[in-house]
């Protein structure tokens, strides 16, 4: 009987230790992949053809367009008060932001874009894991980041910068449509806001 006990005991220790160890390893792995991602973003090749770059910026770039598309999807989820969908789309946006490649821009633009992207990724990640009130708080700052990004990258389509004076002391966002659909209040105050600027 006592043999059985000690065997059981040993098996239990081994099992628990292994389980715990493997959990920790997973954590570490995840972290190191995250690290790789951010390093990829830092890896900007130094620019040579400044003139050419500026021209491309005027026409909009497909990279930035991917970010914009994901941003608009996320915005629409918030307009629709859809917390779950916004979580998913926040994660999608974080990915497209991480994949954003600023190599075609000038050095100053690159460092500003890197800064914008780094900030935006963090907000997108938070959106992927919070309740809707938090998502909207983060969307406010995210919108500022995206507006600043568009100022550098340009956009392929016509955009409307809209503004809601009521949300958190006044808050802007971007939309592809002129009619106002408020992502900060959703159905509660769907049409609150105005177009404050047209882009393109």
């Amino acid at each position, binding site marked *: 009987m006592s043999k059985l006990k000690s065997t059981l*005991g040993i098996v239990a220790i081994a099992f*628990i230790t292994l389980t715990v*160890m493997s959990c920790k390893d997973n954590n570490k792995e995840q972290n190191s992949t995250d690290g790789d991602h951010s390093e990829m973003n830092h890896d900007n090749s130094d620019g040579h053809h400044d003139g050419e770059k500026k021209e491309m910026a005027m026409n909009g770039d497909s990279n930035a367009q991917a970010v914009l598309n994901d941003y608009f999807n996320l915005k629409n989820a918030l307009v629709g008060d859809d917390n779950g969908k916004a979580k998913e789309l926040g994660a999608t946006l974080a990915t497209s932001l991480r994949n954003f490649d600023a190599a075609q821009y000038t050095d100053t633009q690159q460092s500003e874009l890197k800064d914008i992207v780094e900030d935006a990724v963090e907000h997108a990640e938070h959106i992927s894991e919070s309740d809707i009130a938090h998502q909207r708080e983060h969307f406010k*700052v995210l919108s500022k980041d995206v507006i600043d990004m568009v100022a550098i990258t340009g956009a392929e389509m016509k955009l409307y910068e809209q503004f809601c004076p009521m949300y958190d002391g006044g808050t802007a966002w971007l939309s592809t449509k002129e009619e106002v659909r408020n992502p900060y209040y959703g159905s509660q105050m769907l049409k609150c806001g105005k177009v404050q600027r047209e882009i393109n």
Partner: protein
Amino acid sequence: MKIVKIIAIILLVAFVGIQFIPTTRNQSDTVPSTDFMLVNNVPETIQKKLQVSCYDCHSNNTQYPWYNKIQPVAWFLEDHIKEGKAELNFNEWDSLSSRRKASKLRSIIKQIENGEMPLDSYTLIHSEATFTEAEAEELINFITQLKDSL
């Protein structure tokens, strides 16, 4: 009865077993020149409050409680500190760009306003870390000012 005894022994052995798994400790003797307190003109009362309420998880130096070496407590602390520092490390404040600083300050304000920070699991043991209404207001005013001056 026998089964209870066996389970108790298993748990005891497991408890002893996990004590041998090492954890990383978050401790440092030096405060880098990028520290929040060093680069900002922080009033003394707020400095103290930040130190007591935030720095354990949001800096490179944790004042560990006496039970910190006992598993599974040590893992729990390790995880929280890792997460806390990834989110915001006051020691590395000045290495952030203005945009990132503004983002962080905004988050600090929101989290204090909503009572999300310090975490309940932290204030449970560190009751002195809790913010009174007046302390919260003082901090929020200071952080707001700092954010507007960026």
